[in-house]
């Protein structure tokens, strides 16, 4: 598997951009996320995987600020953002694309991205935001659709829009929630290329994914979650060889590679 092309040990051991310390989230009697700690390094593509109900999406919501943790801390670029609301985390350099695409329905594709560019970084004028939005549409292959409404796009284009809009906020860390879901294999390959180009532009990427070949192709490092806890952490090959991980995925090698 040379798809990544870089030895994991050599990848991105630079500064820590995102650090979770003992994050927990309780919903009534359910401990959805339990004492989760990990670090993400600058320029790294980090995958979070795990069976359904492992707490991946809850973790992502804790990172982006949809939920406040019941306990634990979160640092973004060295700054404690545990109690910061979503918009402040965005300004601090955190971007997020949603699993279920959420374009603003009454806006054009270009206007959608303009919102991210205008409000994602302080001091951006409307003119600058429009320019940057168009640059991003070119980068994500949507320039020809700039004037369309979001509902006229295909699913792949919608996902590109979701990523373009998040990138417009000029994040240092981008959270991707199962962006490959619903894509055909060919489309997924295109999306993989898009995520790589995002990383190559200097943005660290944390993504949740179910499709294991995508994880194998993209991730520098993998965090495996099960029942709200971190089960294992390491390269794709390390974690897939871990018997505990295999057991968590229905106890079969097949479960993992399905």
């Amino acid at each position, binding site marked *: 598997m040379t798809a990544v092309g870089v030895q994991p040990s050599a990848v991105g051991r630079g500064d820590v951009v995102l650090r979770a310390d003992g994050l927990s989230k309780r919903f009534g009697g359910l401990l959805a996320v339990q004492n989760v700690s990990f670090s993400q390094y600058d320029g790294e593509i980090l995958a979070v995987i795990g069976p359904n109900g492992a707490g991946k999406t809850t973790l992502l919501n804790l990172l982006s600020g949809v939920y406040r943790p019941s306990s634990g801390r979160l640092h973004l670029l060295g700054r404690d953002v545990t109690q910061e609301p979503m*918009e402040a985390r*965005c300004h601090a350099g955190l971007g997020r694309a949603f699993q279920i695409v959420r374009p603003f*329905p009454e806006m054009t594709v270009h206007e959608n991205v303009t*919102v991210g560019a*205008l*409000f994602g970084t302080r001091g951006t004028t*409307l003119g600058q935001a429009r320019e940057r939005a168009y640059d991003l549409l070119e980068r994500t292959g949507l320039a020809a659709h700039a004037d369309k409404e979001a509902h006229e796009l295909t699913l792949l284009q919608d996902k590109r829009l979701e990523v373009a809009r998040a990138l417009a906020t000029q994040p240092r860390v981008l959270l991707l929630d199962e962006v490959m879901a619903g894509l055909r294999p060919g489309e997924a390959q295109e999306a993989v290329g898009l995520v790589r180009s995002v990383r190559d532009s200097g943005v660290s990427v944390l993504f949740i994914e179910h499709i294991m070949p995508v994880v194998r192709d993209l991730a520098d490092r993998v965090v495996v979650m099960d029942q709200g806890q971190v089960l294992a952490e390491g390269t794709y090959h390390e974690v897939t060889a871990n018997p505990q991980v295999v057991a968590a995925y229905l106890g079969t090698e097949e479960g993992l590679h399905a």
Partner: protein
Amino acid sequence: MSRAMDGGRAVVRRPDVPLRALLPLGLFFLLALVFPFLPLGERSEYLLQIAFFTLVAGVLALSWDILARSGQVSLAHAAFYGLGAYGFALLGKVMPWFLAMPAAALIAGLISLILGAVTMRLSGMYFAIATLAFTEVVRTIIQNLPEATAGGANGLLVPALLGGNARAQYFLAFGILLFTALVSLAIRRSRLHHAFAAIRQGEETARVLGVSVVKYKLLAFFISSFLAALGGVLYAGKTFFINPLETFSLANSIAPLTTSIFGGLYTTLGPILGATVLRVAEEILHNSIKNGYLVVYGLVLMLSILWLPRGLMGLLRRGKHGGDV
């Protein structure tokens, strides 16, 4: 399809509000400006009064629409209209009208921030009910102020605006509607437009993209209520007698909503056009069907909302998006 042709960087440079889209709006204000000079005959006094209240209805509807653009469908407009009316009546006793007017509007704007803060996390029906309750609270407070100053339930005399000169009053109302329209257009061309639209179309997504939702929602409340209060000042200064029941009536909260929907939501021209057509229609129906004109009026409104999902603006503008004024 044709839009895809002019694609490329043109998308970036294209103005938010093309000049030709402003044409109908300019035409409206031109007509409104010359209206008092038309040979209106012996009914001119009556017609000028109708025209005055049409302008006030326009201020009320357009100011409501500005708040609605941020996703806040309020039933508290009567509260701010009434606060403007009462603020003007009380302040007018201690300062000249041209100071009492903005002061009353400012007070209404500041009070709206309280409502905005309280309803920040509410949406849809819950938000609407909370704003409705707020109107009742304000009405009750006004009604229970010392009777010697605020008139209690019986009401209050208001110094007539501009010495009761109907034509001067008309031009003041014209000026305030023009001001409201200019504010609306300025919003359309600014970052506020993008913030409001994003919050309306997906509040959580807007926050993830860095939109300071609290700030923009409160700003929408302040601007909207300030303008609505100016409408209330016009009302109070024209009728020179106000009472809580009429001033804070539910009708004053519902009218701007129906007017904006009928005219075309989230536009500048729509609510103004809606106010004009509905006021004139109401007047004609009132004069031709003495009894039950409201039934016909309601039916006309219902059918037009059914057939014109984007209001009168949908007729004017067949395009799917963009450039709406």
